[in-house]
């Protein structure tokens, strides 16, 4: 076992790891940050997306020991300092962009990274940008709408609300 230290949501943290411990397991089991979810075993579903040194990554594709010292942000670190929902989180609530909530942390993290790179994406860019995240509940309609709304674009014209 090796102790791995990194910065998660602005705090220096550490936990014991095996060589095979994935970043996702490090967060969930080592740190008790269970907001990062595991939805598959092939790095396909995106429920485990976190920000690693500012970039969205599937935390199940990263060994914890390989990213010692990194800056990691998880869903638990996405709210505003006063505890209110961040812009992307709030847009997901306002536009009913989640149902069961299981894919939601990964969706929010992927969306936030998408918007950081492309602040005014088109619908097609949002859909393309989120194709690494699977949602089984929403049919993606309200997720795409929420991301467009979070970018400050008018979504009133989008059908059905």
């Amino acid at each position, binding site marked *: 076992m090796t102790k791995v230290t990194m910065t998660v949501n602005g705090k220096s943290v550490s936990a014991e790891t095996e060589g095979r411990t994935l970043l996702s397991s490090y967060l969930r089991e080592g740190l008790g940050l269970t907001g990062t979810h595991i939805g598959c075993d092939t790095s396909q579903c995106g429920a485990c997306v976190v920000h690693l040194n500012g970039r969205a990554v599937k935390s199940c594709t990263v060994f914890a020991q390989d990213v010692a010292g990194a800056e990691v942000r998880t869903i638990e670190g996405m709210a505003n300092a006063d505890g209110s929902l961040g812009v992307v989180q709030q847009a997901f609530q306002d536009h009913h962009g989640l149902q069961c909530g299981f894919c939601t942390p990964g969706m929010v993290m992927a969306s936030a990274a998408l918007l950081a790179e492309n602040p005014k994406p088109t619908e097609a860019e949002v859909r393309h940008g989120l194709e690494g995240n699977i949602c089984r509940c929403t049919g993606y309609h309200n997720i795409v*709408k929420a991301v467009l709304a979070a970018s400050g674009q008018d979504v009133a014209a989008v059908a059905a609300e």
Partner: protein
Amino acid sequence: MPKDTGIGASSKRREDIRFLTGKGLYTDDLALHAQAHAVMVRSNVAHGKIVSIDTAATEAMPGVLAVFTGEDFVAVGGNPAGWLIKSRDGTPMREPKRPVLAHGKVRHVGDAYAAVVAETYQQARDAAQQLADDTVIEELPAVVDMKAAVANADNRVHDEIPDNVCFDWGWIEDNRAAVDAAMKAAPHVVTLELTNNRLVPNAMEPRASIGEYNTGTGDYKLTTTSQNPHLTRLLVAAFVMGIPENKLTVVAPDVGGGFGSKIYHYGEEALVLAAAKKLGRPVRWTAERTESFLSDAHGRDHVTKIELGCTKDGEILAIRTETHANVGAYLSNFSTATPTFLHGTLMSGPYKVPHVYVNVKAVFTNTAPVDAYRGAGRPEATYSLERVIDMMCRELNLDPFEVRRKNLLTPDQFPYQSPVGLMYDTGNYQATLDKACDLGDVAGFEARRAESAKKGKLRGMGLSTWIEACGIAPSHLVGILGSRVGLYDAATVRVNATGNISVMVGAHSHGQGHETVFPQIVADKLGIPESSVEIVHGDTSKIPFGMGSYGSRSLAVCGSAMDRAMDKIIAKGKKIAAHMLEAAEGDITFADGKFSVAGTDKAKTFGEIAFSAYVPHNYPLETLEPGLEETAFYDPANFTYPAGAYICEVEVDPDTGKVDICSFTAADDFGNVMNPMIVEGQVHGGVGQGIGQALLENTSYDETGQLLTGSFMDYAMPRADDVPFYTVDHSCSTPCTHNPLGVKGCGEAGAIGSPPAVVNAVIDALHRGGITHVKHIDMPVSPGRVWQAING
């Protein structure tokens, strides 16, 4: 003006806050002191005889605490099927035991025959691999294809069932001769053979269970990913483990989607309880996604021949179907109801069809069990019907919209006794069809088609008009139909001393938003703020009883129970008000959160009544009990009948066969709508799954029973760029006539109505593009299949 609170308001979901901040607590998120980890050992062959399992090396591995095999569960009961179906000849279905762990034989890839419990997950996993290496399984020929399974009496999934047939069901058998005669006499008969593709539900949260056992009290606790914790308690306690129900608590905490797959009791739930008892420690198990693919109950998997007899101008005279329905290797809890009473009873759709006969052979195969998946039987019926009607239109050169209009039931025909056993209470199918045509801009289609043609694309439009039976279900009816349970639901409304309310409901929310919607209804009826109402669900120790959430039943059945319990609260409140206001009980009225003496200005607020109930300093105790808490059980009088019209437009690339969905329009009648935002979200999700079935998803077993699509790398889930924005509408409402809220249910609609709309659109695109030799393409209508159909 949209409402901003109560019934009909798009109240934002309160549960979202925890989900959006990473504070949801799903089963796998719950870490327990001294917990041990279980890993299942699963068969890698579809059919085999277990020759030997040598546990010695495994037991000696680091951290290993216990090894279980099928031998350990021989004495306990089997996991039962919830419905007893009888064959046409009156004989009961064949019902092989479904053990906790396979014993003697393994019957599908992924069939668990052993489990290892260790200190850590990784140790358990390593040990499970060792045990697999130390197990000898003699592979037997696999039974995969259903028709071959029935034809070959020597190759048996279960040794005692020679033709692999679970039942051969006729609905309604007495109508068979009349249907045959009507079909023979029909001026035109359309015949279509189709497959309703097997699907893997793939709720995003994999199944997980934690067993706990208190050695001091003998109490068990099961925390599990369930849509219906009380039903799981009943199955585990009474049928499998022989535990008294009062010694077993089942908790389903936050559950990450179900779509049917988490209705059922699975062996892992019994395993973790047995292991917890043996070790005196909590034992947890969480499926990897691959295990979900291999061992969750799958959906659909019908092979059907449907015949439709009609006049030359498209009046439907008779429908006859023959279906082989795959039940997989074992009977999952609802597996026998799904292809029968959730399928055959819908085979006349929203149409007036005088003669209908349905035959279903349920067949055992060496594949994962098949059970209810979003829609459950009704999508299969709708798909068969809507495809064959489309084919009729093509053969007779009739307009599919006009043919629907000609055959749809009209509002004056309700209540309508269908020829397949249901009594539709109300509906207006023309209205939803008109609405869909309007919203989908059917009139503008030709112009859009011309634009597509300029790009070299073939554009087509597909229609589906559908109905379902939801609000599952009237116990008196399902009892006649073979159900071994009642399908009522229950709710307790607990008014606390300070006037806020806890409602304990038997329905379970795993995405549906009950925590938001149910308080809207309570607030509306009792005249208090939504924020004063909290919903408690998913814990058998806190809730009176319940049959859970599936079959679009939560509001129609459990919501009705809640409404009835509120009636009792109001009645009790009137008694209290009469006492406090020194008036006759009959003179008390309740409105806008106030109990008033009719014709006077004397009144007490709801909060004052509640406080008085818990501070009863001067109650006449002989006639008035303290407290304000009421329970109601509600058993529906009938099914509910949501219905609608769906229009899909696609572009087909004739060079590659790729299908793009250009637009999807859904006009639904769900009766009264409690929260439009949530209802629309349910339709979006259902349509997304329906598009997935129609274009992408396929569960493929090879001839040896190996699952070829066992991961998200191989099984095409719909992703954000596979689907469009949908246009949905629920304004054509005919409220349900027999439940107090007038609701019909909306959870499954999208998945029921959409697959035929998509496939009809693809066939339409090909025909309009001059490719008229293509009569049908089985789902998923993948680029390869479309290309082959075009060029075949």
